[in-house]
């Protein structure tokens, strides 16, 4: 019976359900006992039992799948654990190596911050723009909403990301073909394209300069001056563009943020807009004075969630640069570096230390955001 993997899985799934029910009863009973010790009434005791009985599946899962692994990883981060050797206690050596010595980690940190500082605002503003555009309640809204949301559902698939890689190919990729055609046919677009290229290359050269601790490349880009008419972005080809390709993928996946903004726009009372219209406010004015302030809680939510996701970005970099040894260091994220340390070099201790640095960083950033929210998030209008 247990030879067939399907039956084995089914039997173990049933056993798991039994285990969950048993532990839920135990936890509920424990909660009831504690309630009794505190001298609560019979009804309150029963309610406590029901509450903990119902919440137990998550609490038990939390202990097994979150608390225990985190404790293990915290312990390993202080050791030189490396499969198959046994861990040896190192005190803070992993952390000092990580923060003070490891240049590769430092550049992965700078890269991640670049993706967060440049990619996330682009992602959020694009999502907001799409949501406002879709909120006009016209025919075909559903089809467009679906196409903007499609990447969220199907996007993180190796084949789709490989398609991106082919399309972004600098020489004969379809994206650059389109850009070339548009630049040749329409002069203002050509200037726009070249201006964007210039800005992107300056910014990227600056960040690369931080990594290399010299700004020769930045000087070169500056001296080369405004790009020539036939220039196109060098997407997955040069260090100046490697991170931009990742940002393109981030913006491409902005559908879930868009959906949240749509929900926010839906929740704005119609009367507000009608009253403002009676008072003679144009649509631009109404957006700035009504929609945007009332959307700030949603912008806040998207910023918090988006920043947590951006600081952990992994898949796009993995697919675009996994086999590109020369370009990969210019686009590494922290989690990619972590993956490489643990699964390529089996350095579990060092990898655990990286994951704790990532976690602490996320924690700090999130706490700062919650502190700052009072300054700009408006839960009520005036």
């Amino acid at each position, binding site marked *: 019976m247990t030879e067939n993997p399907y039956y084995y899985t089914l039997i173990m799934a049933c056993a798991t359900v039994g285990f969950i029910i048993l532990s839920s009863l135990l936890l509920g009973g424990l909660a009831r006992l504690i309630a009794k010790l505190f001298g609560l009434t019979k009804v309150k005791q029963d309610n406590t039992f029901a509450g903990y009985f119902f919440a137990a599946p998550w609490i038990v899962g939390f202990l097994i799948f979150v608390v225990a692994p985190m404790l293990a990883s915290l312990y390993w981060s202080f050791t030189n654990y490396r499969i198959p050797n046994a861990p040896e206690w190192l005190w803070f050596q992993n952390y000092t190596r990580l923060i003070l010595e490891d240049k590769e980690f430092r550049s992965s940190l700078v890269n991640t911050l670049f993706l967060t500082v440049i990619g996330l605002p682009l992602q959020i503003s694009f999502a907001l723009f799409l949501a406002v555009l879709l909120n006009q309640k016209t025919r075909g809204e559903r089809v*467009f909403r679906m196409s903007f949301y499609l*990447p969220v559902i199907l996007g993180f698939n190796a084949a789709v990301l490989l398609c991106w890689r082919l399309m972004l190919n600098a020489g004969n990729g379809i994206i650059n073909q389109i850009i070339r055609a548009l630049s040749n046919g329409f002069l203002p677009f050509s200037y726009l394209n070249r201006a964007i290229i210039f800005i992107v290359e300056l910014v990227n050269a600056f960040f690369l300069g931080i990594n290399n601790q010299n700004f020769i490349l930045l000087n070169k880009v500056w001296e080369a001056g405004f790009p020539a008419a036939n220039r196109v972005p060098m997407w997955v080809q040069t260090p100046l563009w490697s991170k931009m390709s990742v940002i393109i993928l981030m913006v491409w996946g902005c559908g879930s943020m868009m959906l949240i903004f749509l929900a926010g726009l839906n929740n704005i009372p119609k009367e507000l807009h009608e009253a403002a219209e009676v008072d003679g406010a144009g649509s631009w004015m109404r957006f700035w004075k009504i929609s945007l302030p009332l959307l700030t809680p949603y912008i806040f939510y998207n910023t918090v969630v988006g920043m947590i996701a951006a600081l952990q970005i992994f898949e796009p970099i993995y697919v675009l640069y996994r086999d590109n040894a020369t370009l990969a260091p210019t686009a590494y994220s922290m989690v990619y570096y972590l993956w490489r340390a643990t699964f390529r070099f089996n350095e579990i201790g060092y990898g655990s230390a990286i994951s704790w640095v990532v*976690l602490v960083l996320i924690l700090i950033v999130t706490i700062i955001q919650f502190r700052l929210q009072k300054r700009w998030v408006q839960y009520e209008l005036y």
Partner: protein
Amino acid sequence: MMTRNDRFFRGIYYATLIMLAAPFVLPFLWMVSTAFKSPSQIFADPPQWIPNPVTLDNFTQAWGLLDFPLLFRNSFIVTGLSVFGTLLTSPLVGYAFATLPGRGKTFWFNLMLATIMIPSAITLIPLFVLFSKLGWVDTYLPLVLPSFFANAVYVFLFRQFFRTIPMDLFESAELDGCNPWQAYWRIALPLARPAVSAVAVFAFIGAWNDFLGPLVYLNTADKYTVSLGLSLFQGVYYTQLEYLMPMSLAALLPVLALFIFSQHYFVEGVLTTRFEG
């Protein structure tokens, strides 16, 4: 009546939308186009949108290279059990956080929200060590069983949904002699059908597309899921695009069909969720 001006702006509006939507669907169109191309056309310069001639050889050849019926069956088993496990517990926990009074509920709820912040990378390695100590590597258990312990994101979604249901309903049910379990099973859960559908779709897509999980835990080829099996076409130095693209397309079809038929549910599911707390 539409004035001429209105029609002009409407035209601009739709043109903008189409221009913006194009990049979002472009990779999928490119994938479809690649699936029907002969190997020599895939890297043609300049790139061709319409394959000429349209060929089905890729499908037939790729089908012969791997045991696709088995891969699809494995994927359906893993996905089905994950969805079942998710739906068994996530609504229950969401209900507990939404309705039941009691001390510590807010504490546990905030703790749960905080866990969403934890990078999955941090727990990946210890969990792998745990599962290998249990002897569960190369079984479906590490992929299926965690979903039975309620996923924080889905719990949050259910909790938000249950909070929109008036509390009086549950209180009167309890006065009529329902115990909390009956109130949940007979009243709350049937009312939550839109949220259940939304989460079912999310869980299905998540489990079906999961690549990292099967990659880490499954070793023998006859246990592979579709998403992992397809990576066999992807070598270290060379990727067999002419096989990868058509079969990836086939693997995406169940998800795509589900998405199109149910988008109403989960778009509503997200749209009705309030984020203020």
